[in-house]
């Protein structure tokens, strides 16, 4: 047998070229989480780089095997803690496919509204923290101001600002409350103006331009070989978006564009994210306008909790409620891989069911985890300062990487 525990010696430079190995992180403010980078420097130039992760690994996938399906939902939300609606959608969608459960149109529209708000939220955090690393401190406050309004909306619909547990297998837990629509409309009306302001701050900012232009370019084919998806891939000119290509959710009902870049440098990545926020605003507005009437959750009493009002009048409803809360629903044996377009790329969820009320395996293909492989290609040959910019524009989420 091979000895996999030993580190394979990487290519070394000639001894006259002196290299300095430094350790960035795990607690470095610019790593946006607990990421450690072992960087080999020749002067100011990065010659080699290895990401080391696992510092916030909490065994979520293993723990999911010990929880009934409906208890897994809040667990997987905490993987990529900036894209919780997407994690829920990936898991619920996979279980719905295993159950072959149709979800009502109103539920798909409500899911789209929340996911698109979540996409804006995730991009805002990424943009704000990256701009902060590049010295644009005010950007951070502007981005987090708008993010807070999104969190207010989430709080209104679900009672929680983050990790809302709003999506259920079969639909969403509750219909949107009164007043949500007006508040969402006012946000959607205001957000394009705010995006204009971000652009006014950054687009002609000499420092920002010099820091991002032609930095961290990786050829498109190399990105595809490395499995990179999401804004990073689109910035390199590949118009790949599972919202258009997946055909999974209600996205085919909406009119929106896929923004792409040309060069694939840091500036293009920033531009693609900005343009995506505009598209997300458009999608959410269309979903709100076209929101169909009807139930917000499927009417399958073996899977979905009965309405609260029935519990005091209907014996069957009480039995169903008791069975669902104590044991949970059973899922017929099978396996499904379901992928959606998360804010950082393809977010896939693999669920293996063995016929019991608990999944036999839950695996998340997290986009940050796969995208991080392109980081070495982005940085080698560039300056240390560009490494910070590249990491910000890569926008990894360590909760999602380590799971």
């Amino acid at each position, binding site marked *: 047998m091979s000895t996999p525990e030993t580190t394979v010696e990487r290519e070394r430079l000639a001894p006259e070229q002196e290299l300095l190995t430094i350790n960035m992180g795990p607690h470095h403010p610019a790593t946006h989480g607990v990421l450690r980078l072992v960087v080999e420097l020749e002067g100011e130039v990065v010659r080699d780089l290895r990401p080391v992760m696992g510092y916030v690994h909490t065994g979520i996938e293993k723990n999911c095997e010990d929880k009934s399906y409906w208890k897994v939902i809040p667990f997987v939300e905490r993987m990529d803690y900036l894209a919780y609606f997407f994690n829920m959608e990936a898991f619920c969608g996979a279980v719905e496919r295993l159950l072959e459960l149709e979800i009502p149109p109103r539920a798909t529209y409500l899911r789209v509204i929340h996911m698109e708000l979540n996409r804006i939220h995730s991009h805002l955090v990424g943009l704000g923290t990256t701009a902060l690393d590049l010295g644009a401190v005010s950007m951070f406050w502007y981005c987090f101001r708008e993010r807070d309004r999104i969190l207010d909306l989430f709080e209104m619909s679900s009672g929680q600002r983050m990790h809302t547990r709003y999506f259920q297998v079969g639909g969403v837990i509750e219909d949107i409350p009164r007043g949500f629509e007006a508040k969402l409309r006012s946000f959607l009306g205001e957000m394009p103006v705010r995006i204009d302001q971000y652009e006014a701050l950054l687009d002609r900012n000499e420092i920002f331009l010099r820091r991002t232009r032609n930095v961290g370019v990786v050829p498109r084919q190399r990105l595809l070989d490395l499995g990179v998806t999401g804004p990073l891939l689109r910035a390199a000119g590949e118009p790949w978006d599972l919202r258009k290509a997946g055909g999974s959710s209600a996205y085919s009902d909406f009119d929106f564009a896929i923004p792409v870049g040309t060069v694939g440098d840091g500036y293009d990545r920033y531009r693609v994210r900005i343009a995506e926020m505009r598209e997300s605003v458009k999608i959410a507005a269309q979903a709100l306008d076209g929101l169909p009437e009807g139930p917000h959750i499927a009417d399958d009493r073996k899977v979905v909790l009965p309405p609260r009002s029935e519990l005091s009048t209907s014996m069957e409803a009480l039995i169903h409620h008791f069975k669902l809360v104590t044991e949970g629903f059973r899922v017929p044996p099978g396996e499904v891989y379901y992928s959606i377009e998360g804010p950082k790329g393809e977010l896939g969820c693999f669920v*293996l069911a063995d016929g019991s009320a608990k999944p036999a395996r839950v695996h998340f293909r997290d986009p940050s985890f796969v995208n991080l492989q392109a980081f070495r290609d982005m940085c080698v040959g560039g300056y240390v300062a560009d490494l910070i910019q590249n990491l910000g524009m890569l926008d990894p989420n360590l909760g999602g990487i380590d799971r």
Partner: protein
Amino acid sequence: MPDAPGLELIRQQINERNADAVLDTTFEHDQPALIADPGQVLAVLRWLRDEPGQQYRFLSSLHAADYLPAEPRFAVHYELLNMPRVERVRVKALLGDPAAGENGAAAAALPEIDSCVELFPTAEFQEREAYDFFGIVFRGHPDLRRILMPEDYVGWPQRRDFPIGGEPVLFTKDEPDSPGWYE
């Protein structure tokens, strides 16, 4: 997506070139899957990637699963994607447990499969993850180490026979009962 007859056709075409490389096909929940012989999985992947008319050039995801108590118990899943046609196909390689029923040194034997990093560079981290959690050794992987668990960790935590465990929580009121708890 290739439908069930299309999948049989793919199986036939691969098996003409590599005898018994595809052992079986399944088509569940609209998701086609080829069950590949673990010894020839690279040939299957290469054919699906390079054959004109197939061109599954993107590996979306590589992950492992433990089907205990089924035999063979492990599986490595390759989720392949053809981007222009938006078609997905899954390749599954089932691996037995060489340590089953063994004692002594043989009980530490690990299942092995060829690494596909040469074909799909994206598999590097994901194969490390499968090794980390299931103890599946990928032959020819450039840097096969644990990726998320600590480097000195012993055991393969996502196997189904690995206990969930847990650590006892120490409350302040119980500290007098366990002197030296802080060591």
